[in-house]
């Protein structure tokens, strides 16, 4: 197998060998997972919606090249029209352009915070799972402690205390981005850590790891080559859901006026500005709200589909 597998760290290497041994015609687990995922109608629709959203915020601004801060008082609070497909806000700024700009921020925050949570969680979980003894106990105590923390109040507290000093170092927008991503990630790694630890505890006793150990593989090699790739499935599922959670947290913060500075349009801050005009311009609140909802729903369905697809016990 060593000769046939590429050097890259792929999630399928060990299991692929098993399939190959059993059947002459080999289907890699990645393809198998995709085959299972494809059958989950809602998950596929979620993936398509998310893809459209990502394309929309990345490519959209070059097609719909209206500046996000062009003020036009003659066109304020207008409903959807040909000139402004999603209408305008109280300063006559084009909502479609602002939505695309805000979507870029929301999605970027979601993915970046998920990466932070995954890196910290995998690191803590892997160390705890491999170390056992007092290191394990201490790390798990820390994890439980963090799980008991109320996320949103703490998020608000940290951002309240640190936003000015971070702003000075990294600039207004960059500072807010880094702070929000680090804090959301820093308060969301615990489920990942517990999951990774549980996976490690069971995987490290499996025969293929024992075989690697018998062949003299170092601890790091055991983890990186053999245990971690097999533990990744559920971690990817949790990571997917984490993107959705992070997007909700970011928009909640912006909605409460504590996220990005108020001149940066994000979906949350647009809702915040719109909530005082609900009676005369409901479209202003409904579009960004629906965007948050659709994105989160799409990601959650993808997570559901991935969970089913990764679960080998489930017959589809």
């Amino acid at each position: 197998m060593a000769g046939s597998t590429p050097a890259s760290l792929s999630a399928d290497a060990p299991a692929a060998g098993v399939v190959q041994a059993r059947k002459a015609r080999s289907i890699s687990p990645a393809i198998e997972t995709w085959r299972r995922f494809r059958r989950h109608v809602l998950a596929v629709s979620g993936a398509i919606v998310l893809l459209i959203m990502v394309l929309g915020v990345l490519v959209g601004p070059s097609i719909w090249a209206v500046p996000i801060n062009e003020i036009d008082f003659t066109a304020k609070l207008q409903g959807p029209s040909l000139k402004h497909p999603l209408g305008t806000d109280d300063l006559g700024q084009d909502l479609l352009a602002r939505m695309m700009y805000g979507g870029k921020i929301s999605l970027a925050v979601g993915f970046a915070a998920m990466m932070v949570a995954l890196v910290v969680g995998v690191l803590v979980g892997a160390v705890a799972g491999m170390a056992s003894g007092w290191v394990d106990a201490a790390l798990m105590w820390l994890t439980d402690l963090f799980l008991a923390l109320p996320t949103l109040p703490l998020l608000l507290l940290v951002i309240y205390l640190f936003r000015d000093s971070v702003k000075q170092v990294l600039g207004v927008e960059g500072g807010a981005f880094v702070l929000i991503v680090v804090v959301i990630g820093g308060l969301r790694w615990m489920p990942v850590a517990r999951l990774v630890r549980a996976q490690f505890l069971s995987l490290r006793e499996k025969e293929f790891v024992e075989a690697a150990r018998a062949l003299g593989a170092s601890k790091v090699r055991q983890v990186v080559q053999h245990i971690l790739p097999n533990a990744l499935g559920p971690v990817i599922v949790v990571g997917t859901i984490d993107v959705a959670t992070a997007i909700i947290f970011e928009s909640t913060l912006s909605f409460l006026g504590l996220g990005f500075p108020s001149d940066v349009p994000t979906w949350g801050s647009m809702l915040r500005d719109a909530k005082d005009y609900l009676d005369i311009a409901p479209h202003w609140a409904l579009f960004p709200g629906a965007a948050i909802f659709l994105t989160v729903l799409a990601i959650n369905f993808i997570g559901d589909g991935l969970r089913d697809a990764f679960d080998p016990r489930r017959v589809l």
Partner: protein
Amino acid sequence: MSRQYVIRRMLIAIPSLLGISVILFTILAMAPGDPFEELATNPAIPPEVRQALRTKFGLDDPVWQRYLHWLSAMVQGDWGFSFQSRMDVDTLILQRLPVTLIVIGASQILAISVAIPVGVLAAIRPYSVFDQVASTFAMIGFSLPTFFTGLVLILIFSIQLDWLPFVYRADIHATGWAFYWEHLKQSIMPVVVLGLAQAGTLVRFMRSSVLDVIRLDYVTTARSKGIGERKVIVKHVVRNALIPVVTLVFLQLPAVFGGAIVTEQIFRVPGIGSLLIAAILANDTPVVMGVTFVIACLVVLFNLIADILYGWLDPRISFR
């Protein structure tokens, strides 16, 4: 359930309270900003006076001494003074806390009473039409951010239909039934918003919990004894399926407090959530710290209750 188990659980809660206080204090101590910064820039105050003040208030003490000092003050209920409201922080929080607890409690009751029947019915016939519809709606409820649900409800019921008020008022000028009716009317939307978000999670959990139990041998035994299906489900299945769900209800409370902060902000409910936001926007640090600490303590308390309830509902746990 033994008393020993309860005591042990309570003792375990103490280190987590201390741990949370350490985290809060670390955040506070690391935060930039010096309470005597104003004095430093004021030329009328000589540096020696400033230094004397710093020494007097213990700002130059080692960190652990400052932590112990802060902790003992917190334990004694000396939480500082709100600059904004001109009153002690603990009185202020005690004034606001009941409203929050009532709203959260009512929303939990709503969530549970919706989620349990729906989850059970969905699990009895998995992959049926009802199950698919319920699961989809659960996912929608779970994905809807509370602030958006709140705004949509305001749009429908306050602006379009004009049935419910969208600002929560503490000073209702009415007596007798009218007073309660007004209070009920203005509480409906906050409670529904919080409850529905929670119900989505609970339905999913209840469904999988029932699915886990319904396949067990003792359920087959009950059926084969000739007990009616209804009785099997209610008396045998649901009872055991509820155990993890009860725990989840309590373990979800940190998230519910987060939702309550947003909901209170939207409907201007005078609870600790809106107090926290108002204090943050007004740079009222003692109140911010106090509210965060209270919420953290409540969460630890509810975790403790969840543990104890779990031991009571599932006697196998206690003997571990």
